[in-house]
């Protein structure tokens, strides 16, 4: 089982590494532009948010956004393509337990999230001086976020019947949730009603605890944020495993 798991994850890492121009490089460019426009140009006018100057304030959000997008993109595209070109059958005819297949794909998504996240972190460091207040909290949030969105991408891929289906969720659900989760602002500046609505957005908790790891300030408590993340991971992992074992859209 270990060899099978290692094979899947190595295959996944090689897959996104081979196409680094499409996978690793674009987030670096996007991050640089965000920092330049939002942080550098507009940030000077905005000033301070949540006790931190705006240029620094947006760093955790930008990093986490790339982790969310890339973890999701990796599993959704990889698993959907495996379904599309039927290479998923290579795994289905092999004695690989379903949980190993799931773990392999999720690890692939996490690996891409980590690779892109670290690349973006290094890029940010070239523009802005900063220190991470609590590395453990920041890294745990980073990791759990990557796991959660890899699972979400996997579930999207299971249900996807066409290439359109793998872009609809990121465009119409993931992107608004990311932007409305307090990535570029503190939810404290919203009217009370929208502050309450934001608390139903899981991305708010991720960004908030990641920001806590970076600056030591947050708008919700760490326990709530971590609980939301872990509960969501458990629910999505159970659903993904059920779908895979049942063979939904894979076996007839």
């Amino acid at each position: 089982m270990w060899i099978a798991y290692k094979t899947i994850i190595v295959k996944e890492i090689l897959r996104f590494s081979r196409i680094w121009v499409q996978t690793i490089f674009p987030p670096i460019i996007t991050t640089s532009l965000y920092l330049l426009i939002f942080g550098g140009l507009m940030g000077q006018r905005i000033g301070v948010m949540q006790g931190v100057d705006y240029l620094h304030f947006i760093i955790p959000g930008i990093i986490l956004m790339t982790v969310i997008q890339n973890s999701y993109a990796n599993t959704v595209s990889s698993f959907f393509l495996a379904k599309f070109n039927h290479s998923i059958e290579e795994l289905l005819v092999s004695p690989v337990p379903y949980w190993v297949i799931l773990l392999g794909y999720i690890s692939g998504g996490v690996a891409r999230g980590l690779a892109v996240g670290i690349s973006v972190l290094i890029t940010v460091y070239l523009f802005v001086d900063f220190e991470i207040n609590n590395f453990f909290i920041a890294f745990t949030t980073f990791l759990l976020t990557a796991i959660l969105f890899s699972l979400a991408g996997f579930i999207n891929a299971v249900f996807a019947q066409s290439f359109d289906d793998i872009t609809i969720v990121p465009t119409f659900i993931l992107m608004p949730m990311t932007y409305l989760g307090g990535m570029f602002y503190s939810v404290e500046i919203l009217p009370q009603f929208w502050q309450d609505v934001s608390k139903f957005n899981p991305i708010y908790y991720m960004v908030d605890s990641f920001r806590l790891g970076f600056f030591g300030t947050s708008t919700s408590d760490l326990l709530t944020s971590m609980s939301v993340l872990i509960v969501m991971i458990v629910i999505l992992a159970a659903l993904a495993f059920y779908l895979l074992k049942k063979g939904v859209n894979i076996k007839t």
Partner: protein
Amino acid sequence: MPVALSIQNLTKTYSNNLVALKGINLNVEQGDFFALLGSNGAGKTTAIGIICGLLNKTSGSVEVLGINQGDQANEVKRLIGLMPQEFNFNPFEPIEEILINQAGYHGITRTDAKKQAEILLKKMQLWDKRSNIAKSLSGGMKRRLMLARALIHQPQILILDEPTAGVDVEIRRSMWAYLKELNANGMTIILTTHYLEEAESLCRNIAILNEGAMIEQTSMKKLLSKANQQVLILENSKKLPQEITANNFNYERLDDYSLQVILGSEVSITEVLQVLSGQGIDINHIRSTQNRLETLFLCLTNKTNKKDFS
């Protein structure tokens, strides 16, 4: 002989209510070279899909070397190598990687997998292309790649679904030779093919599926002995006479130089040639219009007139 594959009352109904398998029974002995034939849509690929774990069965049981597929699916998967009908690899992956990954899924270390991949790729004449992506291979090469992939974990049972479709004659013959070699070394091989001369040449036992039902399961020899009628084309270098007397066989004049003769069990080709020779017709070339198995297959699956056969 111990049983390699035992299928009992296997049924499959798809979600669109298409009944693909109607309670089929099948036994394949260990070491056999077995043909599973049927027209398009007969249920061959469905049956293979269920055996290999690609499809869910509706009811019935499948046992591979005494192991129940329903209870120990992964144990069964270790024993089987599948070469499917459709190309099912990542076209952008280098071909050596495809084999190494498949070995990895079977728990074979990368070092051992590389050695085994080298042996198989050399055998399939693909070693020079090992770094090429699968997309760049020709149709025949892709088929050989899938055969190599099916063999990478050294299975005890090899299932080949249309293995030589689109493969040129030379490569097909070399694949046949290799399959015979594998079978001679003890590997059980189950073959589906549309090239009936392939089944006739390679397989010792045969089953025929028709519209989801098993209509025949016997030895190739017994099945072929049922064919008591043959259609032959007899060619003469000189122009044939206008009138030909033939009391014990039927014929049809195809052109001025050739006859189509229908031979029943009661008359031999020697007798026909003697009759023709007596009328000054010296046949210098004989060829069969149809493969015997093909004729029988068409008869059994109602694609031709059953009265032609006993």
